[in-house]
């Protein structure tokens, strides 16, 4: 599954900026002015390179707010990718 990497989804309604994910995944996430995770690649759902997928899954399990999800597909190549479903 992780051959092509993955992407990280943050449930912003649950995240309280505890900072654990930014510490565990420094390659992917920085921290913003207010303590919330900030995608280094600037995407709404940052890319998780193949070699970090297992690590990202650990962060997903350890998030005290359960606000992190590792989604199996890497992000679309275009930043504003053409989703087939309407925006929610």
């Amino acid at each position: 599954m992780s051959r092509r990497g993955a992407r990280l989804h943050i449930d912003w309604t649950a995240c309280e900026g505890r900072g654990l994910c930014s510490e565990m995944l420094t390659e992917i996430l920085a921290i913003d002015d207010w303590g919330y995770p900030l995608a280094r690649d600037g995407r709404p759902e940052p890319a998780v390179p193949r070699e970090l997928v297992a690590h990202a899954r650990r962060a997903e399990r350890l998030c005290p707010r359960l606000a992190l999800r590792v989604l199996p597909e890497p992000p679309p190549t275009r930043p504003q990718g053409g989703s087939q479903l309407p925006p929610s």
Partner: protein
Amino acid sequence: MTMLDHRESRDRRTSTDDYRPLPPGAGRLLLAAHPDLATHHRHLGLLPPLAQPARLLAEIDAAGLRGRGGAGFPTARKLAAVAAGRSPVVIANGAEGEPASAKDRTLWAHAPHLILDGLQLAGALVGARRAIGYVPAGPSTASLRRALADREAAGADPIPVEIVEAPDRFLAGEESAVVSRIEGKPALPRDTLRRVVVAGVDGHPTLVQNVETLAHLALLARFGGAWFRGVGTSGDPGTFLATVSGAVAAPGVYEVAYGIPLGDLLERAGGWVGRPQACLVGGYGGAWVPADAADVPVSTAGLRPFGAAPGAGVVVALPAGACGLRAAADITRYLAGQGARQCGPCRNGLPQMAGTLTRLADRERSPALVAELERLTRLVEGRGACHHPDGTVRLVRSTLRTFPAEIDRHLAGTCGQEPMPAAGGAR
């Protein structure tokens, strides 16, 4: 407006797109003299029974009908996505949380049966078990109630329609907030991982469709896709309800074809009062079109260079005596206050953007304010459960782009519009 005016304004245009205007005096959505069912049926006939759902879906697709609630998503694709699931729910979304928009409540007042025909049709297309009218309290709810009573007596509604009251909040009409409210929870956006079209109300696939979209759907089913495309542009076919406010002689709701030059739309609303200034297009989370771009077509393609879109059809004409930076600061502060306070970047970033823009409007002589605004827009964009931060970012970026001379003046301690502020800033 006379026919001559139309011709003149078309000739003036430099764009080569294929705008076909509504003939003078013509309209589609607001024609009925009375909003009652008998008048509705006399004008338009009964809604044809849905014999071939797949064919109608293809016709809607070919007609190019797109959502009139703001996002402009293709209606056929949304219908198809919801139809793929089990026992869907359909919702007529008339929450209209955008303060500068009045078209949905106008439609409830003048054409409730067009909305309800569209809701029944959408329900039949997706195989819905539940249909809901989501409306603000007051005249719109009263109109919906009256209309439903008429229709019950006439047996017009195969799917019974429930009424759910929309709170008076900017985000009340956001798709997932609508779902939350109908589930009996506060009308707040939810995380995007569960898509509304797949798992909306109580886990059922849910179609949330703006009431104007449903009204167009009811007409499209009667008169066909070719008729629907008869006005507008090839990219944005059909008409839309524009709410024009601000410095115009006759503010109000006007039905016009997509592609209408912005200046012609303002003429429909009585024309500018005073010297023309910039217009805010697309709503509070929209973008400015400067005064010298009156010929720009109000269409997706026409407005794109300005970072704007027709959205829900909102146009606010900035009064001659008003400062664009001040107006933008006030709107940004309003938007910051209307956030759902769920997502950290929005909850923190929007008030900070509003504060920084207000300092600029107050003529604080610090060039760093502009760079700070740009940094904050990058920090906030795309980082929330809904697009509230993104709309606010759009407005702030557009303000920085549209008013560079004003910004220079403010940074020099003067303003082209406002007198010197009182110390302490009462605003």
